């Protein structure tokens, strides 16, 4: 992005008092116009939750942008023991982009490694679309992501990493913008904020309403989601908009949990859910 070069001020014409201000104004206007041009023609994919989409630019997740999803601390304030919820939310968002290959880049952790498990991911997208890449070094991971963003036929690129490299983030963001392919960074722990991402989400798993022990309520996951950064989006009335959402594996539906039901047991919102007759669970 162009900045005001010193020789603008140094030029004899601009040196005159009256000219400096208009020059600066013109500069600012040009920057703003560049910005608006950049924004027009952008595409977004709705998340499927109306209250969230209302805040996001173009009513959804921008396709050519960098999105960050980090695992938030547990309700008690301790570091979450795992990022299963953040991964679920990321997969849920990625599944909305398509068709095409999903490039999933990660750094292996040796014997303690817990790679994403396709039978669960199949709730959000067909794992046959996945191209799994393991890179030992951070720079290889970012390189692979960038290559993926530039390749034709790629629906989305996701990188699982703890590394927070501002340069790499900026490069990813530019590559995503240029090619109109979304890039996701999935962080197992909260990372220092990076200004380049368009949205940053913090996801923590939330306790399900207490039921009698042993009573199965399968396929429901509750996440506490915070939208910590929302570039180009509509400012929220709250300082840090957050929602309690529920994923129902039976109905394939992600919905905000109504305030009234936060702590109480109750049936899933089957009335508004999109039921899928093809998908029936075998019991037994």
């Amino acid at each position, binding site marked *: 992005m162009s900045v005001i070069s010193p020789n603008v001020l140094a030029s004899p014409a601009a040196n005159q008092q009256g000219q400096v201000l208009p020059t600066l104004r013109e500069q600012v206007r040009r920057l703003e116009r560049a910005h608006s041009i950049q924004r027009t023609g952008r595409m977004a994919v709705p998340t499927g939750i109306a209250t969230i989409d209302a805040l996001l630019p173009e009513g959804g997740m921008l396709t050519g942008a960098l999105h960050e999803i980090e695992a938030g601390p*547990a*309700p*008690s304030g301790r570091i*979450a*023991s*795992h*990022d*299963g*919820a953040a*991964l679920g939310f990321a997969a849920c968002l990625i599944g909305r982009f398509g*068709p*095409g*290959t999903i*490039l999933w880049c990660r750094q292996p952790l040796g*014997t*303690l490694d*817990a*790679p*994403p*498990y*396709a*039978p*669960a*991911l*199949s*709730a959000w997208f*067909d*794992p*046959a679309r*996945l*191209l*799994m*890449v*393991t890179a030992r070094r951070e720079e*290889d991971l970012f*390189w*692979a992501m960038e*290559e*993926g963003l530039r*390749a*034709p*036929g790629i629906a989305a690129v996701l990188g699982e990493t703890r590394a927070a490299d501002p340069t790499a983030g900026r490069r990813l963001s530019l590559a995503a913008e240029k090619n109109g392919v979304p890039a996701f960074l999935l962080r197992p722990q909260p990372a220092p904020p990076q200004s380049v991402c368009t949205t940053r989400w913090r996801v*923590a*798993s*939330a*306790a*399900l309403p*207490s*039921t009698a*022990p*042993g009573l*199965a*309520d*399968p*396929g429901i*996951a*509750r*996440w506490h989601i915070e939208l910590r950064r929302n570039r180009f989006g509509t400012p929220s009335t709250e300082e840090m908009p957050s929602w309690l959402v529920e*994923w129902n594996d039976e109905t394939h539906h992600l919905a905000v949990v109504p305030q009234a039901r936060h702590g109480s047991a109750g049936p899933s919102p089957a009335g508004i859910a999109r039921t899928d007759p093809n998908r029936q669970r*075998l019991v037994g």
Partner: protein
Amino acid sequence: MAALNAHARAAGLRPHMRLADARTLVPDLVTAGVESEADRRLLEAIANWCDRYTPWVALDPLGAAIAEPDADGRLEACSAGGFGGDAGLLLDVTGCGHLFGEDEAGERALLTDLVERLARHDFTCRAAMADTAGAAWALARYAERQADLFCPRHGQREALAPLPVDGLRLNTPILETFLKLGLRRIGDLYALPRAPLARRFGDQPLTRLDQALGRVDEPIEPRRVPPAFRTRLAFAEPIGRPEDIAAATSRLLAALCRQLEQAGVGARKLEIALYRVDGSVDRTGIGTSRPNRDNPRLMKLFGEKLGELDPGFGVELMILAAPEVEEWSGTQDLLPDTDAAGTSFGNEDGTIDLADRLALRLGTENVVRLVPRDSHLPERVQTTAPISAKPVPEGAWARLASMKGARPTRLLQRPELVSVTALLPDDPPRQFQWRRHAHRVVRVEGPERLADEWWRPRSNGKYALASSMPPARDYYRVEDDDGGRFWLFRDGPHNAARWFLHGFCA
């Protein structure tokens, strides 16, 4: 004494002499220890360099650099040694002479070029060319006149006749007997009846003679499999700039792709070799997951690798070869579509190109697809397959997942042992300790019982006994008081059960 130079030979020294004997003959003898490993490496380097003439280069199997000493510690073959050391290289230059000139003149030029170039690198060598490896071997070592080193077509019988029998590559005992019998020249053997010769000396003399004369084929085993497709580009002036190398590569690639197209195949592997002016060779290769003969795509793959090549002081020759080709399985070659080169490929092609590029830097095992497997053991359901494998049919995963209970979003590579507190041995867990952290369980789903697959052998290769109950795992999805959801299982008989953590749920 392993090897001698020309001066030592002139002074009357012979190989296999004892050093003390040699010193009595030549008191001021200069010696150096034998470093057979280093010698061998040097010979390999020269062999690499010789690839510039033909892909079919072999180390002389009888050379001292390779031949193993026998039980007595003596080298069985080529006792006489030749010129200097015993090390030798065999080059099959059939059909390679045309690069240097017409017919015989070209082959002569090739030979001269080889000797001159080696001399420029300070190697003293003698090279002979003949129709058979045996004849060339004998000529290189025992020919007396320079002119005899090139044996014209079908001329080996006359060329070999005046040479000593040592040139036949015989075992030492046979050689010694021959000499005692007065058979000194190879020509002396021509007239002898074959049957008594074979009875007395075994097969070797006749086989060697026939091989040298071309009556019997002698296979030469090349050091590397000669590629069926290769192109070469020699430069009048050594080049060194990366742009020049890239331009040369693209020219070679264009020529190679034409060859591949004519043969109806695509390359799975390509190798480029730079022959540097200092005589060393640098090579690098690329692999593709599908047979490929698409020039721009291959060039893109090469783009990554060319940076690794070191032109040194300059490159005088480049050879591009396709060591591995496969039947062309791809679609018909697209019509040239210059302005939409990136978009004319389908989705799948884009992904495979990307995978090839990633695999080149990260390794093939690190760029994979997930493939479902018909199994009900969670860790066996998901496997990985290289990108070149058959793609998974659409919906196969969803079908598989719909038959199972809820699954975790992450599955531990290796289930981790946790200590669990439960009210009764068969009860669901109330609390578990994982990585030194206690988790109080507030919600439980399960158990989901998954029995062992008795039809598969265990890790120790044995099958489960038919009479015994197959071991089963009871899986529970639990939620701790902090909202974290885990996938635990109980393994083993209920009186000695062990608990494992196997995955993290969403």
